[in-house]
């Protein structure tokens, strides 16, 4: 059995990092969360812009925020609420605590304002940090790894070098009993029949068909003629001749193994193997969905050079060309452009796999070194009220 060095959580999941997360239940709590993070810089603040004023997205946002707290890379969480918001700190903390990990909460209005709330938060996270520090890495089976797949700022070579290279890693992990999650519905338009053929049963095939059809319909309904920019045969000048060709270049990240489940945005799958997540193509929101779904690491391919990482999940950047790699070497972890010089894709796959295994064991990605945590961007479908 192949293993990595990870942190075992009470629910049996396996972290590759050991963070104490501080989660605002609502955007109004970001300031207090920031005060806590200034005082205890080792905590990971999950700043976001939601938690109230929405109706349709409430369930999705509750699920997503709670599942971020439940991500295996998080050892313990503090949820800071305001008091009058729709998404309550107590409810989020209770959902996180269901996984068995410590989850504290309080509300700013009840604590008596910003300063007293910050002081209370600092005291709580200091205790959580001390407990988390007692946890040590130990060998855990690779089958507990869930790997997120993302492409952002693609170019004509993404589908030839970086994405098929990542596809090799997907096959490698799935063959070891692990899970990969492919998302970004808009990148699947035109390849529904190919994805359905890979489904492990007719029910999964049906869900794939419905998800891709809905993505295509939504794109047309909302964008009208502008839909062509999203779903047209990519950039014709770049060499894409059909929508199938363009989308195949994206879905090739998921490798070749059967698709076992389709989940909603930010939902934790139960099947191993290749899982599809219904979610947007916008990178930052997509990363949130993957992190909430329980991914401990994310492979992110890029042609134009996107430097973003994620607060609680190491993100590995795979550059589609050597030119981009050299141009943004501080941000790029892997040069997939070597394929254009004759390096076989299998060899690129092995290079990415070796880096991934080191990252699982604790080696920092470029995005981690650069502190490219950013903020938590949440998917939304409707206006706020």
């Amino acid at each position, binding site marked *: 059995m192949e293993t990595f060095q990870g942190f075992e959580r009470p629910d049996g999941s396996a972290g590759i990092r050991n963070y104490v997360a501080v989660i605002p239940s609502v955007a109004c709590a970001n300031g207090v969360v920031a005060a806590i993070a200034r005082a205890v810089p080792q905590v990971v603040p999950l700043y976001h812009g939601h938690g109230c004023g929405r109706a349709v997205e409430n369930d999705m946002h509750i699920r997503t925020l709670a599942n971020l707290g439940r991500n295996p890379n998080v050892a313990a969480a503090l949820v800071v609420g305001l008091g009058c918001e729709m998404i309550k700190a107590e409810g989020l903390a209770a959902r996180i605590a269901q996984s068995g990990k410590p989850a504290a909460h309080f509300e700013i209005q009840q604590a008596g304002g910003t300063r007293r709330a910050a002081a209370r938060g600092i005291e709580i996270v200091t205790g959580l940090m001390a407990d988390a520090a007692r946890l040590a890495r130990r060998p855990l089976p690779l089958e507990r790894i869930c790997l997120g797949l993302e492409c952002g700022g693609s170019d004509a070579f993404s589908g030839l070098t970086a994405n098929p290279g990542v596809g090799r890693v997907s096959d490698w992990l799935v063959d070891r009993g692990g899970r990969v999650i492919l998302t970004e519905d808009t990148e699947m338009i035109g390849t529904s029949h190919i994805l359905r053929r890979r489904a492990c049963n007719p029910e999964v095939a049906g869900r794939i068909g419905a998800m891709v059809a809905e993505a295509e319909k939504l794109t047309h309904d909302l964008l009208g003629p502008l839909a062509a920019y999203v779903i047209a045969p990519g950039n014709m000048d*770049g060499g894409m001749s059909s929508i199938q*060709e363009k989308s195949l*270049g994206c879905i090739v990240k998921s490798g070749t193994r059967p698709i076992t489940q389709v989940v909603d945005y930010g939902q934790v799958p139960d099947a191993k193997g290749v899982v599809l997540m219904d979610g947007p193509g916008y990178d930052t929101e997509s990363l949130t969905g993957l992190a909430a779904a329980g991914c401990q690491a994310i492979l992110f391919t890029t042609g134009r050079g996107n430097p973003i990482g994620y607060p609680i999940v190491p993100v590995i950047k795979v550059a589609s060309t050597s030119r981009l790699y050299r141009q943004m070497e501080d941000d790029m972890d892997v040069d997939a452009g070597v394929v254009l*010089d004759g390096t076989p894709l299998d060899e690129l796959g092995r290079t990415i796999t070796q880096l991934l295994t080191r990252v699982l064991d604790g080696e920092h990605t470029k995005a981690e070194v650069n502190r490219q945590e950013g903020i938590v961007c949440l998917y939304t479908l409707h206006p706020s009220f």
Partner: protein
Amino acid sequence: MASQLITVHEKDNVAVTPRDFKQGETLTRPQGPALVALTDIPCGHKVALTDLAAQAPIVKYGEIIGRAKQAIRRGEWVHTHNLMSVENL
């Protein structure tokens, strides 16, 4: 300078150019025999690896990405002028 054609999947009947090629240039491959470019082929575009009859499936990533609008010869540029996009394959 990169010069070898890139084939993504063993079943593919097209390969991708890593740079601009001029008509008459030799296109080499890591595996498989070299071929001669019958037309200019831009960087990142596709070249036919075999002679393709009209209506023949054009395969990349091991999947059908379209069909030949007309007969396409080995070494010819493959793009929207000679590839039909096919809905509901």
